[in-house]
């Protein structure tokens, strides 16, 4: 199952043409909560046409301050209203001192942060009555780390019981930025907990730095890493993310198709077994 992020830029085409044919759509609840008017109508049509997965932006699981329970209430009712099959979020923080910052900031890889975050993930899972699928985010600098990134993630998964969203492009970006081997990193993850995959493009802004922009096509080495990765996983949904520099839809559909072909070639047997 290969889907695409539901964006206003190409919503009309998704709803009324065959130019692009995802198996599901994904959107951020924050971008659609409390919305009415024209876009509410479009969202309703989209939800009627496609299965929906949601990928949150504002939970800020790594924030020092308490979780926003009003926000969680909104999320819970939103997920129920739109029959959302999977809800994922980011292993990062975007709020500090009660100020939102609208991006995914890197959490210090530390034991106390593991305990803090695992407890919060459990709190969210208990409240939402569903597993939380946490994305391993791209990051551009470590912050006062006292343990390795992979140990940090493994311990959070173990302590919280959460699932993982494996953004293959993020791993590629992080491996480049921080000088490690992407395949080795992925091999050390609890892969049985991976419930969702993201794929996207990025932009190299300096000889030693890649920024995860979602504004470019996926590059071949990321496709290669994706193909290597899925051979180690059970079939899970795969999402193509494209947030900026939206190309012609034929180009997006080409990326979708390439991802579907790779999934099909390696997961066909499992598909048939399940079928």
């Amino acid at each position: 199952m290969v889907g695409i992020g539901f964006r206003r830029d190409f919503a009309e085409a998704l709803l009324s043409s065959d130019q692009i044919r995802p198996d599901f759509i994904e959107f951020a609840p924050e971008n659609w909560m409390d919305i009415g008017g024209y876009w509410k109508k479009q969202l309703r049509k989209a939800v009627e046409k496609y299965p929906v997965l949601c990928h949150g932006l504002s939970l800020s699981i790594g924030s020092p301050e308490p979780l926003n329970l009003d926000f969680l209430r909104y999320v819970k009712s939103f997920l129920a209203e739109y029959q959302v099959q999977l809800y994922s979020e980011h292993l990062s923080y975007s709020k500090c001192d009660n100020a939102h910052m609208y991006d995914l900031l890197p959490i210090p890889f530390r034991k106390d942060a593991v305990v803090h975050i695992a407890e919060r993930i459990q709190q969210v899972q208990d409240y939402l009555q569903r597993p939380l699928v946490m994305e391993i985010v791209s990051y551009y600098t470590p912050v006062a780390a006292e343990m390795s990134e992979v140990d940090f993630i493994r311990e959070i998964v173990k302590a919280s019981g959460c699932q993982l969203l494996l953004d293959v492009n993020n791993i590629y970006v992080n491996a480049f930025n921080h000088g490690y081997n992407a395949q080795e990193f992925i091999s050390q993850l609890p892969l049985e907990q991976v419930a969702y995959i993201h794929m996207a493009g990025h932009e190299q802004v300096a000889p030693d730095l890649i920024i995860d922009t979602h504004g470019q096509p996926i590059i071949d080495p990321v496709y290669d890493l994706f193909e290597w990765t899925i051979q180690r996983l059970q079939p899970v949904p795969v999402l193509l993310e494209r947030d900026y520099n939206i190309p012609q839809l034929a180009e997006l559909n080409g990326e979708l198709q390439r991802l579907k072909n790779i999934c099909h070639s390696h997961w066909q047997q499992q598909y048939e077994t399940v079928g």
Partner: protein
Amino acid sequence: MKLSADTYKIQQDFSHFIRTGKAVRIPGVNPAAMAHYRRLVYNVVKDALETGYPIAFANLPRRKWDSMVYNFFSTHACTAYQVWKLPLDFYTCAVENSWEERYDIPYLPDLLSFEWAEMELYNMEDVAPPAYLPEGDWLLDTIVFNPEQRLLHLKYPVHQETCRRKLLQQAGAYFVLVYRMPDTGDIHFTGLSPWLAFVVEQLLAGITLTDILEYAPQLNIVVNNNLQGDTIAFLQHLQEKQVVLGFIKH
């Protein structure tokens, strides 16, 4: 909270840099890479405000606009977890800090209020009107309005003028009804005279037109057949525009 004071402080320092751009030293952090976070976050904020306030952005002096955006993000704790509501935080910050005086833009609160009303109405949740009849008595029945509207009271005509000099010359009392079209979701607005603004305000409160006309002499308004006829004609015009939806019989 299970976070140590040290980790908490590190997160605070990092986010303080993101908001202010003021250098901070954090163990293990690459300053050049950290600057990219600042750039990325600040671009989100700038884009949201430029999109939310296109008239202000296009017409206020760039130096003042840039200073407002910087002061806003570095000093105001943004409460909106939805980016489209970030302009409301900006408007709140401007009013709380009397930016119209600080930046010498007397019409700034009006301009932000008008543009935020358009943005809010465009995005706001659908509001169901009460049950109503499509036809009724303009004088005696309760008139039902499209609930997706805002009646604004402005000191400057920011809805029809962008030139600073002209705006300052035309200071007065202006009333603007901003509304969302039920079928398309598009936002429209119409300027109102003080009398029609008063009528709309009272009708929205559920007062009948007859009661409003009976009260009018207390406002030193001369009620005659012309005033009554013109007022009803205006309400009929609003009905054509789907701002007035119908009637509730008494």
